[in-house]
């Protein structure tokens, strides 16, 4: 299967990025369960999608390729991070592809685009990463599940941490798009001190010299940021080069296993808000990390863990539904109450189909083998529900 996958991967790459050839893994037509894996695996933000995809496929592989004990077919499509493209791909998946469950997406902007076509067709979405506020509150949807977190929550972790340490002045900068604004809102939700700067940098900005000079002059108690992908790599490196390392650096989705190989020593000791880290103290999690590193030769981040958990959720739900996915109400009830061993321990779906789980503060460390990863420091929230759940009245 590995060879088949690799071959198809190269076929897809040879076709160029404008043409997306769906990869089909598993038995061809007579499958009892069809899953569409819709992730972003091209463009500069491809690393997170690759993590989620690899984590999900590892989960499927561990279950012998049969989720819930039934023949499972998985179709992988790349949405390229483009909402319009994702909407047409998702429509294709649920109409001609007849998938029962769409696993995806990575980006919240894509989520809003695919929600209607998928749920209108009666299929389910289980998100391995994106958790926008829109589907957590009054627009919660019976066919939408989020297996990661509500987007605000990791930022709330750091706000609470900054508050707990008694920081008075925190300099805040984020990327200038919806998720960046949400990040600041999330941070402010639990932080009561002064927010300095509140700088929004254009998406894709790579040089932070001007922002770092302002930080140097303000000398804040801490810096809080949300700077995904390559932006985060650069900010962290330049932060260290500018001699600012004595200022605590708090972030979410800025320092993770995807960016640490490039940030290296510059990121050591930086604090992040998360639900999990590769050293999470749970036998199943340790087993997962070892298997993942062996198979893919890189360290899994939360995206991979979430992908793996989604495979476990589907497996448990299909089993609980007696292997029959055609009865959607039965399957929905089974997902809502899925009994599975989450790699992050404490996990259940709330009434808005977003997780109720624990949140942790983690920090970047160097392992004995010279590689870098995040490491759990302390638990910040226990069985934490998002702030929108109370507005959700789930239709039956």
């Amino acid at each position: 299967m590995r060879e088949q996958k690799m071959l198809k991967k190269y076929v897809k790459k040879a076709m160029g990025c404008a043409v997306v050839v769906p990869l089909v893994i598993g038995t061809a037509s007579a499958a009892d369960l069809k899953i569409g894996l819709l992730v972003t695996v091209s463009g500069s933000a491809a690393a997170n999608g690759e993590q989620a995809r690899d984590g999900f496929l590892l989960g499927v592989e561990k279950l012998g390729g049969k989720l819930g004990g039934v023949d499972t077919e998985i179709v992988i499509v790349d949405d390229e991070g483009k909402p319009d493209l994702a909407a047409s791909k998702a429509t294709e998946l649920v109409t001609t592809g007849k998938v029962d469950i769409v696993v995806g997406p990575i980006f919240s902007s894509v989520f809003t685009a695919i929600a209607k076509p998928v749920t209108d067709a009666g299929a389910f979405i289980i998100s391995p990463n994106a958790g926008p506020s829109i589907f957590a509150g009054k627009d919660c949807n019976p066919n939408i599940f989020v297996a990661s977190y509500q987007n605000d929550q990791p930022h709330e972790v750091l706000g609470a941490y900054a508050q707990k340490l008694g920081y008075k002045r925190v300099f805040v900068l984020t990327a200038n798009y919806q998720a960046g604004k949400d990040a600041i809102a999330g941070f402010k939700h639990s932080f009561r001190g002064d927010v300095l700067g509140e700088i929004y940098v254009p998406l894709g900005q790579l040089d932070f010299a001007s922002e770092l000079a302002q930080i140097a002059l303000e000398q804040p108690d801490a810096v809080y940021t949300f700077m995904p992908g390559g932006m985060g790599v650069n900010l962290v490196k330049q932060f260290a080069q500018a001699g600012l390392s004595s200022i605590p650096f708090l972030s979410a989705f800025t320092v993770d296993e995807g960016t640490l190989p490039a940030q290296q020593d510059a990121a050591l000791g930086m604090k992040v808000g998360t639900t999990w880290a590769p050293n999470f103290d749970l036998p199943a999690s340790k087993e997962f990390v070892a298997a993942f590193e062996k198979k893919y030769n890189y360290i899994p981040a939360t995206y991979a863990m979430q992908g793996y958990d989604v495979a476990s959720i589907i497996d448990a739900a299909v089993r609980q539904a007696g292997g029959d996915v055609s009865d959607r109400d039965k399957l929905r009830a089974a997902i809502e109450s899925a009994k599975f061993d989450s790699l992050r321990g404490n996990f259940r779906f709330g009434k808005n189909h977003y997780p109720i789980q624990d949140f942790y503060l983690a920090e970047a460390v160097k392992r004995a083998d010279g590689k870098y990863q995040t490491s759990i420091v302390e638990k910040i929230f226990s069985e934490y529900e998002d702030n929108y759940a109370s507005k959700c009245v789930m239709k039956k």
Partner: protein
Amino acid sequence: MFFELFMIQIMNGVQFGILLFLVAAGLTLVFGIMDFINIAHGVLYMLGGYLIAVLSAATGSFVIGLLGATAITFVAGFVLEQLLFRRLYDRSHLDQVMATFGLVLVVTELIKMIWGTSPLSVAPPEMLAGSFPLIGALKYPTYRLAIIIAGLVVGLILYLVIARTRAGMRLRAGATDREMIDALGVNINQLFSVVFALGAMLAGFAGAMVAPVLSVDLGMGESVLILAFVVIVIGGIGSIRGAFAAAIMVGVVDTLGRTFGPLLLRMVFEPTIAGQIGRMIAPMLIYIFMAAILVVRPAGLFGRKFA
């Protein structure tokens, strides 16, 4: 404090400008002398970054990585010119854009297949890794100063070559009247090959120099290419002097605008509103600046009047 911030932002602006100059120099030569639009110029910048990452990791030496990346991008530029670009000189600008954009896609996918999608990093040389006190409590990263110095040295060499050597004279003549120097017996094809390889090398050098500051990733070429086009339009197409002046201006305007725009707005508006307006206006500043320059000098700062 305002003064300190101003000074350090000027330094940052100059450093950013120097970088833009290195990329724009090659672009303006190719565009100005050969009338050839090369969208793939950013790819060579990216290639320089990837090469130094790989070479310095393999040899453990930043200097070997830098020299290697510079040399290989020179060769890459030469080979690309021989194999592909040469066939496009007589075609329309649209064909050139299509072909070179195609090259961007191909090279980006190749790099992705070889090195993956995660950003790579390059450590600066040990002696340049830290920062030094600039004014008061403010520190400035030593490596950024090294970029400024390296850029100035390259700019000086380029100036001397163009102003003082026979090859430079032909180059200037080529920029002024291509047919005429062809008629006078100068081997124009050879000249083009060399100019192209030189431009590629400068972009590769810029990509390699910037690697320790910025991460090396798949999008790095695109981000700098657009600004490089802005620079050559402001400076006057084909003018190295213009590219230098315009690059420094764009670097300084962009950096100062990003910092002081929101700060000034904050004196008038609420912080959140100032932030909102500031973040909308700051990215537009250099384009407003470009428009203002073009109103006064339609051919750019050092452009030929009839252009």
